[in-house]
């Protein structure tokens, strides 16, 4: 399986703080990679670099055949728009827009909005009855499902999750993970999920452990 992500000696420094120390990693296409580690271990830094939200301080970073270091700001924006879908722990939904409008906003920044397609996406995540509700009128699990619909609406090749179940109870967590699994089986995107939760990490094909910006261990599902 060809690699969708390839890093070589990838580093990220914030002033004198080295958030990510030289990292060599390959992620094959279609893999579900869980990234674990304690707070400040470099998980989110790694995810931000891979998602084109931040620029590395050194090394090489190829994502989907694109050298992210060589991309201009416009190029990075295009990359994020067309290649990446992101699910945040805090949802980051626009509070005064309805669920369907939140999804359409992602379409707008990608190309053109299409309401029927946005509705289909929300129906796909089980929110067909909550289309016109604003985020404040939805539960945490429902808000996260709107986020998932928003993240997948532009058919990304890479889905990034930054502790997507961090705010959810056990039942909602299971529902969200089940949904992601189903969608992945359907669309075959690559998932990189940052989490603290061992149980959530176990949904992936492989888990890597970061500690103080260093990759210290990795496990395949079968090894655990």
């Amino acid at each position, binding site marked *: 399986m060809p690699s969708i992500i390839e890093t070589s000696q990838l580093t990220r420094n914030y002033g004198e703080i080295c958030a990510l120390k030289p990292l060599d990693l390959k992620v094959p296409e279609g893999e579900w990679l869980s990234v674990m580690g304690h707070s400040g271990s470099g998980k989110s830094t790694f995810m931000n670099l891979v998602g084109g939200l931040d620029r590395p301080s050194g090394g090489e970073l190829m994502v989907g055949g694109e050298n992210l270091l060589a991309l201009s700001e416009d190029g990075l924006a295009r990359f994020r728009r067309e290649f990446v879908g992101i699910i945040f722990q805090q949802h980051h939904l626009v509070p005064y827009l309805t669920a369907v409008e939140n999804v359409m906003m992602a379409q707008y920044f990608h190309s*053109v909005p299409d309401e029927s397609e946005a509705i289909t996406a929300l129906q796909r995540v089980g929110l067909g009855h909550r289309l016109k509700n604003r985020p404040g009128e939805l539960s945490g699990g429902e808000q996260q499902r709107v986020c998932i619909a928003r993240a997948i609406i532009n058919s990304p090749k890479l889905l990034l999750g930054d502790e997507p179940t961090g705010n959810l109870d056990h039942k909602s967590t299971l529902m969200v993970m089940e949904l992601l699994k189903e969608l992945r089986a359907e669309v075959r995107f690559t998932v990189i999920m940052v989490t603290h939760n061992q149980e959530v990490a176990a949904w992936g094909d492989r888990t890597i452990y970061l500690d103080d910006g260093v990759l210290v261990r990795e496990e395949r599902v079968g090894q655990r």
Partner: protein
Amino acid sequence: MTSMAVRLMPHLLAWGAMLLLLARGCAGRRGTVAAAAGAGFIGGIVAAPAAARLLGTDASFDTAKIVLGAAFLVYCAVAVAALYGSGRSSAANWGERLTCSAPVAAAGAFFTGVAGGAVCGFRSLSGSVTTVCAAAAAGLLLLPLMLLVERRLPAAFVVSPASLVSGITSLLLFTSSSLLRLDLFSPLTMKVMKFSHDFVHQFFESMLIPDHLFFTARLWGFVGVLFSNAVGFWGALVVWLAPALLVICAVALEPLPAVAHLREGARRRKTIAAAIRAKRQRLAVPLLALAVFSCAVYQSKFPAVEYWDPKPIQVSASPAGEIFIPKKGEVDLEDGKLHKFLFKKGGTEARFFIVMTPAGGLTVVLDACSICKPDGYGQTEGTVICYYCKTLIPLDTVGRPGGCNPVPLPCALKADGVHIDGVTLVNRWVDTVQATARVGGEGK
């Protein structure tokens, strides 16, 4: 020389913009188009003064005006065709086939060059041979420069065939509108006004609008609008801008690509978004053309022309009542400029001017015509202009009676100067001013 260079600058800039559009619009034929346009420019800039010398300035300006008018009509036809074809998939193909065909592209570029060069030639009529040569050299120098600039333009700057015609025509009419005698908008205004007046008149004549009690004063007020000066301006503006608006509509109405066969929603939307973006980019040139057409209207309405308008020199009559103005006195009557004089008798102040016609003879006329308020005349570019109605009177016809021509004055032209009878002058002035005293308003 410097002032002529400044005067030629806008024409050369417009010529540069035309080259840019030609190079981008006929991208596959840059070399052919550049060569044809360059040859045309040289031909035009040389032909204009030559034609003025051979045919006379009037005939040469009239011919140029006819050519520009024909170009505008062709543009109208292209705009209608573009709108007609905008809903069809093969719509753009005929235009693209034409712009890609070497003979058509070359002919179009040659015509553009001739027209652009001729306008520069007419502008530099009063200049020396050196000025014409310098203008020709500058025009040629712009060729490689604009080809280089064109290569640096973003790929998104797309010029469709209809947009190309739109841009070129707008620039041609803009550049020509700065020459009073090549301006098309003013005559168009007059034509529209005349059409409106004749139309309403014929309507009444055929009793289609009876003089009925139901026709209240308020309603007559609306009918009266059709006779106002504003009808000419606004009507002409509609005709002037209509083709550019049609081309804009044609681009805006182009259908989006069929995407039903694409399974992935994001790809479908992306295809549509790309088509919408391309359509917006194609709108840039027609929108710019609309702006240039509007600038041409402004230039026509408020021409930046410096009129030669000398202060009248007061003259007096001999005891026998004769006014004598020497050829080489306070002013040189044969210097080609209009010279104004003022004669006071009783309570009457009569103005007249003397000018040398292109034929070489001196002509003496009143500083007033028999139809307008006596606002007087100024001189510019081989013509005199009536300040009241802004009509241009070629110098060849000054001295002939009729229309807005200044009223001729009998005089005796002798070797030493001009002899005018004071009483005749005053009587003719009074008759003329009395006849035109009813005229109101501020002219057209």
